[in-house]
Structures are given as C-alpha cells and as structure tokens.
C-alpha cells in the first residue's frame, strides 16, 4: 500500500500517521519509559546510535548524490565539492554549523552564477 494507493483524501494522512508519527513517537515514549533505567553509555545504546547515524548519513548522501528538483541540474562534482568545502569550513570554524552551511551555499551559488542552470520544467 503506497502513499498514493487509495484515491481518498484521508489515506495520505493515515499513511503519514502510521509510517511517520507512530514510528517516531514510539521511540520517544520508549525513551521516557526507560529514562534513568538504561545508561546512555551502555553498548546497546552505542549500537543503536551507530545504526541510526549510518542510516541518516545514507539519507544525506542520497540528497547530495541524487537530489530532487532544480539541484539535479548541477554537476555531481559541484554538489560534492560544495558539501566537502562546507564541512571543512565547519571544522575549521570550531564546529559552527552556520559557518558550514554558509560556506557550502557560497560555493554552490557561486558556481551557478558562473554557469547558470536551466530553469526546470
């Protein structure tokens, strides 16, 4: 049953609730229930953090390697280059997220000013 499987107004909302809300709030509620009972430092928690982090990192890579919309009109090397440049700037600035984001956007926008992308659609 995919997101657009049923042609009714309520199905997408039910889909979001089950696939999105139940699946996130369950982990939060589990956290309240466990609160204080489980050590953050335990191996189980480290493993959980590793799996979740690797998964989110895969999502990030996907957004850069095969992006949606107008960003897809830019070369892969420019996207990877601006992300890498932003990350280096972030580290150099003492892990300031804002610096990393701005540096990345400066590289990307600078490239698009030099080599304008075609208007999509």
């Amino acid at each position, binding site marked *: 049953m995919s997101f657009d499987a049923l042609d009714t107004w309520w199905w997408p909302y039910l889909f979001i609730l089950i696939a999105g809300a139940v*699946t996130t709030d369950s982990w939060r509620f589990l*956290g309240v229930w*466990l609160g204080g009972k489980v050590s953050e430092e335990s191996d189980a928690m480290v493993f959980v953090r590793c799996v979740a982090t690797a*998964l989110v990192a895969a999502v*990030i890579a996907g957004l850069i390697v095969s992006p949606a*919309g107008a960003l897809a*009109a830019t070369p892969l090397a420019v996207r990877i280059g601006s992300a890498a440049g932003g990350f280096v700037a972030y580290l150099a600035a003492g892990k300031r997220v804002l610096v990393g984001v701005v540096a990345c956007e400066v590289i*990307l*926008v600078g490239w698009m000013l030099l080599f304008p992308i075609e208007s999509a659609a």
Partner: protein
Amino acid sequence: MSTARPSSPNQPDSALRWFLRGATNLFSVPALILSTSFVGFAALAMEAGITQAQAVFMTLVIWALPAKVVLVGAILAGSGLFGAGFAVALSSIRLTPMVVALVPELRTAGGRRWVLYALSHFVAVTSWVIAMAHVREVPRDMRTAWYLGVGGTLTVANAVVVAVVYQIAPHMPAAVSAALFMLTPMYFLTSLWGSARERATHVAMAAGLLLGPFFAWLSPQFSLMLSGLVGGSAAFLWHRTRGRRA
C-alpha cells in the same frame, strides 16, 4: 510537598514566564538554521507531490526532520506502508537515547508521567541540543513549562515556515530552489557530526555516507536499512575493538 515554596500561589504566572523564556529560543542560531532546513524540506516535499496540508501535518505529527526526509524519500521511491514505516523507524531509533538523556533533567518528584510523554514528542535534534545546553539554568519545577516553550513553539513555527514556502516556492528561480535543496543535507552533515557522543558515531556517519549511494545503486528499495545496519554494525565493531570516547 513539605518543601513547598512560598511562591506557590504565583506558580501559574511563573510557569508562563518560563514557557515564554523557552519560546525565546526561537531566535537562537540553531533555531534559525533549523528553519532554513525546513525551507529545504518544504521544497523537497513539494517536488515529491506532497500537498501543503500534508506537509504541515507531517511537520506537526512527526517533527524530527530526518524522519520526515526519510518518509518523503520512501514516498518518492513508491515504498509501501510497511517499507516506509520501517525505514522511518530505523532512522528514528536515535530519539530513544536522546530522550533517555533528557528525561532525568525534566523529571520532578511529584511530576506527572503523562507530561513527560507529551513533551517527548518535541524531542528532535535542535530542541534537544538547546535543552541539553540550557536546562540546568531553569529551576527544576519550571523545566517542563520551559521545555514546552522551547519545543512547542519551534514545532509550530516551522509548520508555519513549511506552509509559507508552499505559497512562494512556485515563483522562485531555479538557482534559488537548487540552493535551498542543499540546505538540508548540509545542516544534517554538520549537526550530526557535532552531536556525536563517541567516535564510533563519526565512523558510522562516514560509513553511511559511502554505503548510501552504493546500496541505492545495488538495491534502491532497501538501501536505507542496509546502509544503517551494515554501516552501523561496522562502526560498532570498530568501537568494540578500538574506539571509546570522541
């Protein structure tokens, strides 16, 4: 109750005051950056054919941005309810240790349990980072009111951001929307690195970045789960043999 304070008659006032103080975090740098990545998210959701009302609904009921981006990715890939739910669940496991760390700070001796369950909904990377940094500056019995101010207003404000982007995005030049699409990955790349508690998390991140595109090519449907499990296990093994603290 034997430690009741003399100020308890003004408690509602005081709770409101701390709620508002929490709400002022809306104007902090992390909150500003989060809003720009919600601009990016709204652009992504729009591209995926999700309606304005659905995107606002997602923001309110899911809240955590990685979970929403994973859900939109699953919708784009045409995943079924189970596949999409499983990918979102796997990407959200990290909420549990975050809540586990926050709950002891919010708990009071006579506090009601349901308040903590309700407040936990607002836990996502940004509000959690703000809370962990400042919660100790708040008197213990005012912390739940304060955190409602931090998390609740952040959630509602970003739902408004999403709604507004849907109105103005169709009129944006291609270069502007391309720049917006880059905000979300860049925000995650840096904030995820910064929130790591042990070096194994950094290893997991690097593994996920490399494995993601590989598994997307090998098996698009299961790429997120495979990247999470394989990359996460590898990082954990590394942690057991060499790692320890960041």
